[in-house]
């Protein structure tokens, strides 16, 4: 489509390409109010609260730190690889292999589909159109996130940051609602995790860089057993506040 030629990704930023050049688009993409369905998902926090594994700010911090360094790193690697231009359908298969829980695969695809909708409106792109056509029920959310970042002119590192941040901001927001946790405490938890997020994002971006030459198996595949097990339990609850 001719409108695609004026997609932001095709425009050279005035101060040259690179991670910092398109930083503003990252704020839009990583905004918790970006309308891609995230607000209805707790990132495992609802199940962890019920099981007593998240009770206060300290246990929220431990939960988020673990999630960031496991599934957060894995998602960040997939997202960065998609931004780097690796085949999104191969990445979608890699995401399936990294997600043993069918409840989490379903949630990831649902969120991927919702993100596709929002991203196509924000940054029209033939690559997003092609992925939507190939995966009408939704691709895994981190793959879509990476492709959306690519359409927005962002770098793989930016996509890794967005994916890593989502891995912790979702549970933190949910914990505020579920535990009536002091929102300032929850925000302090996120701020305290920022240096860890820096490391995770860079590690994911470096893995994505290597994956272009060495294949997708070098992308992180770190998983968190309790997140997988609890996700299946949560999916079986008759009454719950969050979709996952």
């Amino acid at each position, binding site marked *: *489509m*001719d*409108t695609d030629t004026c997609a932001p990704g095709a425009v050279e930023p005035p101060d040259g390409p690179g991670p910092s050049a398109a930083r503003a688009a990252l704020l839009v993409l990583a905004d918790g*109010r*970006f*309308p*891609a*369905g*995230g*607000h*209805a*998902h*707790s990132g495992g926090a609802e199940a962890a609260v019920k099981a007593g594994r998240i009770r206060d700010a300290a246990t929220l911090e431990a939960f988020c730190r673990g999630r960031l360094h496991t599934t957060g790193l894995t998602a960040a690697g997939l997202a960065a690889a998609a931004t780097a231009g690796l085949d999104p359908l191969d990445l979608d298969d890699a995401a399936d292999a990294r997600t043993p829980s069918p409840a989490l695969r379903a949630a990831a695809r*649902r969120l991927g*589909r*919702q*993100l596709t*909708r*929002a991203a*196509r*409106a924000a940054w*029209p792109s033939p690559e997003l159109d092609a992925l*939507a056509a190939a995966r009408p029920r939704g691709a895994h959310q981190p793959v879509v996130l990476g492709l959306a970042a690519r359409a927005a002119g962002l770098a793989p590192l930016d996509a890794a940051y967005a994916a890593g941040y989502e891995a912790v901001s979702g549970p933190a927001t*949910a914990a505020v*609602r*579920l535990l009536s946790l002091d929102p300032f405490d929850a925000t302090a938890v996120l701020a305290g995790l920022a240096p860890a997020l820096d490391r995770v994002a860079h590690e994911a971006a470096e893995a994505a860089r290597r994956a272009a030459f060495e294949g997708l198996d070098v992308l992180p595949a770190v998983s968190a057993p309790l997140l997988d097990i609890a996700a299946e339990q949560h999916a079986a609850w*008759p*009454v*719950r*506040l*969050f*979709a996952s």
Partner: protein
Amino acid sequence: MHLDHPDAFPHRHTYSAADPHRPDGTRRALRIGLGGPVGSGKTATVAALCRLLRDELSIAVVTNDIYTREDAEFLLRHAVLPPERITAVETGACPHTAIRDDISANLEAVEDLEDAVGPLDLVLVESGGDNLTATFSKGLVDAQIFVIDVAGGDDIPRKGGPGVTTADLLVVNKTDLAPYVGADLEGMARDAKAQRGDLPVVFTSLVAEGGVRPVSDWVRERLAGWAAVAP
């Protein structure tokens, strides 16, 4: 009509209610949102509308529960529609977000229903019981109904708020309870008129036979208008 002008909104039909056509060019269903405070009778209104209209129209319902599935299960239990025509959207404890700020899950639910059981004439999107500020995004629905009830306080129309003031139809429900709660129906009508100008207000009592007819008549008018806009 937009299909003749693909450059105007080249991608709109893929993500928003703004286009009255589906990707295959057929007319999509009219989407009507029902919002209002907890307990005002939104689900009962949806159930009554379905019973009255289901023989002549192809209808589906999306519910947005505060807790998952309660409202959907009420509709299923009372068998107002076959189960494949009812979908529940989970809202993460924020029902107003799901109908206004981030409508993506509701749009998917509506489109999935059209794909699965369509073509549809009418999709009713019921919000989770929320406060007086909850309104539907124009990206999700074509028109919205705000349901309040006389037992919730006859001062609600006077207080206004986006739901009362801007909804395409204001329903004041449970008029049968007015004598018991000392509600002043005429005062409510006056206050509503002051808040809403020419926008319509109807009073209903769903316990009576055909009690939902003022709402169903309004829905029929909207459907006639929809057919004219999107032939």
